[in-house]
């Protein structure tokens, strides 16, 4: 059996108009979990709770350590890379390692310096003199030198060059290889997440819309391309277990054309649609699954006229 590394029960928080509520999930050791959602979905609120380990009424456990009972023991098992560096800007790399390394049991200072060198960062350079990308790399070197069990990455790639972005993926895969540590990866780049993460926590307006594997979520949705009108499709729907989530109508030269996103497993699709269906991509599922049926008109022939 796989060992559960991080367990979150009843996590939630009210902040003005916004409320994050009922977040519940279990992340096994040795996997990468992506957190997705639009701006304002609650990603940062959740991340702060997980990093701090403080949340009234919640039960958060990391590697068997309860955040409520032993917040120090909980926190020293988390390494993190944040969009904005948490270290004082007047510090240089060496200071950070000396001062903050002591918060972690078994902080490997030599490894930290070695990684800084690998990433091409002068250990005497002050953080305020570093580019955003360098600040990220410095945090990463620090995080990897801790013996953390959970690595939290908050939108880390925005300021990194494409080569290092790929390198980062390899680094994270390396972290989980031994099945002792896991990674929480927050990003709005859904395409990146699709290939790279094992589990997904999808937040929408403060609510947990999905937790499970990426594969599992994609199995639930199909994209259908057809000439059938919505009403015809709805007739099919009444006979089968298929829920139409959205419809994109395009009027092209030579007739109307529809694309539907439906919530339905491939094997449950009505016979008439089997040939025109494909597995929906994560981006497509996320983009349009709002509440209720969304209908979008896409007038392709207008664009053609404009050109003429």
């Amino acid at each position, binding site marked *: 059996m796989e060992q559960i590394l991080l367990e979150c029960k009843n996590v939630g928080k009210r902040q003005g108009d916004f409320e994050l509520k009922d977040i519940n999930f279990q992340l096994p050791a040795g996997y990468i979990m992506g957190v997705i959602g639009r701006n304002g979905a609650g990603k940062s609120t959740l991340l702060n709770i997980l990093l701090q380990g403080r949340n009234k009424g919640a039960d958060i456990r990391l590697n068997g350590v309860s955040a409520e009972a032993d917040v120090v023991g909980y926190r020293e098992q988390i390494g993190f890379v944040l969009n904005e560096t948490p270290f004082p800007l007047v510090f240089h790399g060496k200071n950070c390692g000396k001062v903050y390394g002591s918060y972690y049991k078994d902080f490997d200072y030599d490894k930290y310096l070695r990684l800084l060198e690998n990433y091409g960062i002068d250990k005497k350079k002050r953080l305020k003199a570093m580019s955003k990308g360098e600040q990220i790399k410095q945090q990463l070197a620090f995080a990897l030198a801790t013996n953390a069990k959970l690595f939290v990455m908050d939108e880390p790639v925005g300021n990194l060059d494409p080569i290092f972005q790929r390198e980062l993926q390899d680094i994270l895969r390396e972290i989980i290889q031994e099945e002792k540590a896991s990674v929480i990866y927050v990003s709005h780049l859904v395409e990146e997440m699709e290939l790279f993460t094992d589990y997904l926590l999808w937040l929408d307006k403060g609510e947990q819309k999905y937790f499970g594997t990426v594969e599992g979520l994609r199995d639930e949705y199909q994209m259908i391309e057809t000439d059938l009108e919505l009403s015809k499709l709805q007739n099919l729907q009444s006979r089968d277990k298929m829920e139409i989530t959205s419809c994109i109508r395009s009027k092209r030269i030579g007739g109307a054309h529809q694309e539907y996103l439906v919530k339905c497993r491939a094997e449950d699709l009505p016979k008439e649609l089997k040939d025109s269906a494909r*597995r929906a991509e994560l981006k497509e599922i996320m983009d349009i699954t709002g509440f209720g049926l969304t209908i979008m008109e896409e007038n392709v022939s207008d664009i053609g006229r404009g050109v003429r």
Partner: protein
Amino acid sequence: MNIKIQTKSGEPIYAQIVRQIKDLMINNTLTKGESLPSIRSLAMELKISVITTKRAYEELEKEGLIYSVPGKGFYVDSVDVQYMEEKKVQGVEEELVQLIEKCKKAGISLEEVKDMVEILWE
């Protein structure tokens, strides 16, 4: 093990792995009792998620083509090559039937299709 993944393809990645491992069995690159790379090392090598590779192995296990030894890993089971080849031919036949249907609808003659196939075959 030489497996190539196309991320932009409509075929799910786990299915691409399943298909290619089957091909390796049919052409005898993988033989009975041979060990497969671990789920995690294959994921690392192909730069895809662990869950995806895991799913591919689970599918193969369900079909009885590979088996796992706890604590050790996955191995190739006895492969009924003839059966798999038959299934492959059957799959092609099914696709051909659909294709012929499409040709008839589009008014393309048998002669035209033959020509097309001959040109494209190379």
